[in-house]
């Protein structure tokens, strides 16, 4: 029996090593391919350069960095309030029969392939923005113009895509708040709404923040859906109706034909993305510790 266990132990060790090793190998590979051109071209030039035109030899990734940030931010602005409200509804307000229908439906969202989201956005959201949202904005600003391929379209699609992550984790966090808190609050005469806002949500804070961080990770990394709806224009955006290209989208689109230098530049873009996600995660963990640590 003992021998048997040893074999299993070794097997588990191998699995764990493969997972960890992959992370290191991928990191090493991206940096090995991307760093030389960053050095040669100048990190400042690469990160803050405003022209991305590899065939002409200019590699400024700033438009794409701004693109990724704006689309992700937009998705969070739309998706987080919606997701948390949904979680509160499911955990605190909805009767069981409704939860039984709503929850599987939201979980199903996570299973839809991203290219389907993208196609939905391309066929429905993009024309919708051009035909119905643009006229409203033009009433305030006559100069406004959009083809529909925009940050807004990307943000709306991503907001729906990150919903399952936010709803599921937040709902679990809210459900795991000790029942005594709720009972105490209600016993003191607070209404149900006051209890939710002032007692339950603060108590579930760390879980909710985790859900937002995970959602943000998904939004930054999403590629296919975003390529289809944001228009991929490598230009620093001026409004939510402008087209943008994202870091991941550029890598996916251009890798196929890239010449060796261009390819290295795309790896350098990968390095930026890597650092970008690291920074996001670190700052998120830090805020989480400060807010929910006690």
């Amino acid at each position, binding site marked *: 029996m003992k021998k048997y266990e040893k074999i299993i132990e070794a097997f588990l060790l191998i699995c764990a090593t493969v997972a960890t090793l992959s992370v290191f190998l991928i990191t090493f590979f991206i940096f090995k391919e991307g760093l030389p051109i960053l050095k040669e071209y100048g990190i400042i030039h690469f990160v803050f350069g405003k022209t*991305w035109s*590899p065939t002409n030899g200019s590699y400024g990734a700033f438009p794409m960095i701004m693109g990724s940030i704006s689309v992700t931010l937009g998705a969070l602005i739309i998706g987080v309030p919606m997701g948390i409200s949904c979680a509160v509804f499911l955990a605190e307000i909805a009767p069981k029969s409704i939860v039984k229908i709503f929850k599987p439906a939201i979980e199903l969202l996570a299973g839809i392939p991203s290219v389907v989201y993208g196609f939905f956005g391309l066929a429905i959201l993009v024309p919708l923005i051009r035909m119905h949202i643009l006229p409203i904005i033009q009433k305030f600003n006559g100069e406004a113009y959009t*083809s*529909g*391929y925009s940050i807004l379209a990307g943000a709306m699609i991503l907001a729906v895509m990150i919903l399952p992550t936010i709803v599921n984790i937040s709902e679990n966090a809210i459900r795991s708040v000790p029942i005594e808190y709720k009972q105490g609050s209600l016993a003191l005469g607070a209404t149900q709404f006051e209890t939710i806002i002032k007692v339950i949500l603060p108590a579930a804070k760390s879980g909710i923040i985790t859900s937002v961080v995970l959602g943000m990770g998904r939004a930054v990394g999403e590629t296919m859906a975003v390529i289809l709806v944001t228009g991929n*224009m490598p*230009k620093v955006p001026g409004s939510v109706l402008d087209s943008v290209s994202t870091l991941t989208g550029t890598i996916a689109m*251009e890798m196929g*034909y890239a010449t060796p230098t261009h390819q290295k530049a795309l790896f350098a873009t990968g390095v930026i993305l890597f650092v970008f996600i690291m920074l996001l995660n670190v700052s998120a963990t830090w805020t989480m510790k400060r807010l929910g640590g006690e």
Partner: protein
Amino acid sequence: MKKILSLVLVLMMGITMLSGCGSKGETTDEAETKTNENTLSGKIVIAGSTSVQPLSEELAAVFMEKYPEVSVEVQGGGSSVGVKSAADKIADIGAASREIKESEKSLGLTEYVIAKDGIAVVVNPSNKVSDLSLDQIKKIFTGAITNWKEVGGEDQAITVVSREEGSGTRGAFVEITKIEEKNAEGKNMDNTTKNALVQPSTGAVKQTVSNTPDAIGYISMGAMDETVKGVKVESVEATEETAKAGTYKIARPFNYLTNGEESEVVKAYITFVLNEGQEIVKEEFISVK
């Protein structure tokens, strides 16, 4: 636990057996082709245009399958390099994705047009503009013209749709329409406007143009259908016939160039390209047959 382990083992064995069968099948296939082999042998070096390169590689692969004793080496370098290396006999065949210039004609090279590459300029079917000059197209795509009324359409901003950096279609389009120009230092610069939407495939360009009323884009001629409207260029409709005849301007020939007496293997290759090879050409380009 043991059951699972044995199940995994059985599965693994099954997979190895299956893969074993697969590789066995391949080897017999190879053996068969070898028995059919022809006596032709030798080496061909093709150098030149990077646009012709993928096509040459595909043609060469099929040719080498047919004549295993022949090896065909395909190199890049650009059209001018193709002309030069054929003239200097560095390569057996020079490849050029443009017409041969007057100055190059004196080199006495033999020209074979192996394919034509045509690009259609497309707009939304609702767009009234149906004829654009090369200069207008250039101005639209470089951002000098930004409204449809400047080219005889409605007062609507133009949404330019381009392909991604490095795309062969984009490369050909900007070259022919002179969107790509030499700058002061003599370096080729792609001047496509920064305000262009970029779509990663012919299908995506078509989709964008078909659901955006004020969009203009370009796609390979073979991909045209009724979801988009092809624009006449210099009053010539974009069809295979006009591209073959050379009256449609946004098209270019793919030329193979040879210098002097061709060796038997080169002759065989060129005959192959001009006949059976045209089936491969048809997949992406316009056949010359």
